[in-house]
């Protein structure tokens, strides 16, 4: 997949993974696994990027005698997901246009 496209998709996927409740690194990877494979170092980069874009906030909480980082979605993060849905409609219409000739030839 095109690297820019994949990057944008992964950002939205990670936001979706923390949309309903705060989550932590390993859980995000596990939740996304059925849909998209994600390595730890990639996830780290995405989380950093989303944090600096104010789309999520981080808090550290104790869990089983150790510290764990939890990620919480911000209003900007929620807006990014909504924007993505609109963008995807546009992409789908572009897809229709791109594959139109294929259909006509069949």
């Amino acid at each position, binding site marked *: 997949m095109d690297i820019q496209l994949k990057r944008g998709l992964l950002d939205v996927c990670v936001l979706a993974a923390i949309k309903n409740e705060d989550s*932590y*690194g*390993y*859980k995000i990877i596990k939740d996304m696994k059925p849909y998209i494979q994600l*390595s*730890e*170092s*990639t996830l*780290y*980069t995405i989380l950093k990027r989303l944090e600096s874009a104010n789309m999520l906030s981080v808090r550290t909480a104790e869990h*089983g005698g*150790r*510290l*764990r*980082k939890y990620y919480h979605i911000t209003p900007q993060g929620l807006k990014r997901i909504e924007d993505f849905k609109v963008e995807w409609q546009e992409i789908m219409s572009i897809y229709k246009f791109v594959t139109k000739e294929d259909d006509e030839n069949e």
Partner: protein
Amino acid sequence: MSKQEFLSALRKKLSGLPGGDIEERLNFYNEMIDDRVEEGLTEEQAVEELGSIDEIVSQVMSEIPLAKLVKEKVKPNRSLRAWEIVLLVLGSPLWLSLLAAALLVVIAIYTVIWSVVVMVWAAGLSVAACSIGGFVSAVVLAVQGNVAAGFTMFGVGIAGVGATILMAYCCAGVVKCVFSLSGKIFIGIKSFFIKKEAAR
């Protein structure tokens, strides 16, 4: 590989990154391993699931902007200590003059090379002038009635023309040589600095 082995190996490989960045990444991987262990994996299995350290490092390096890496590289590994600054200032008469000397040597080499060009051209021009002088004096001597001397000077003039043509070829060749030579020297100086940087 145990968790500690993995983390310390990763720390070593990431040492080119800013310090805070390394700690944060290591904490992240630490948490990832702990979460897997909590699910029932052994430490070794958890480490294995994260992939090889080289893979992680190459991915980290490819994701970090080049500007950040260069900044980290150019930044001295530690700030200069007070006595080092004092030494640097006190030693400036020494190292400044050495630096100036090195610079002057480079300029001198360039001057010598280019003076060869000037010399060849000067020789060529003087031969040309000589042939012109030969023709002029041949005419003057012939007018004065000294025909034998006039013919001699005419011969000198013709010889001068021949020598001038040869010298023109010579000049062109030398200029070409010097151009490529000075280019090579320039590249040599540059690669000297680049190699020094790479060896660090």
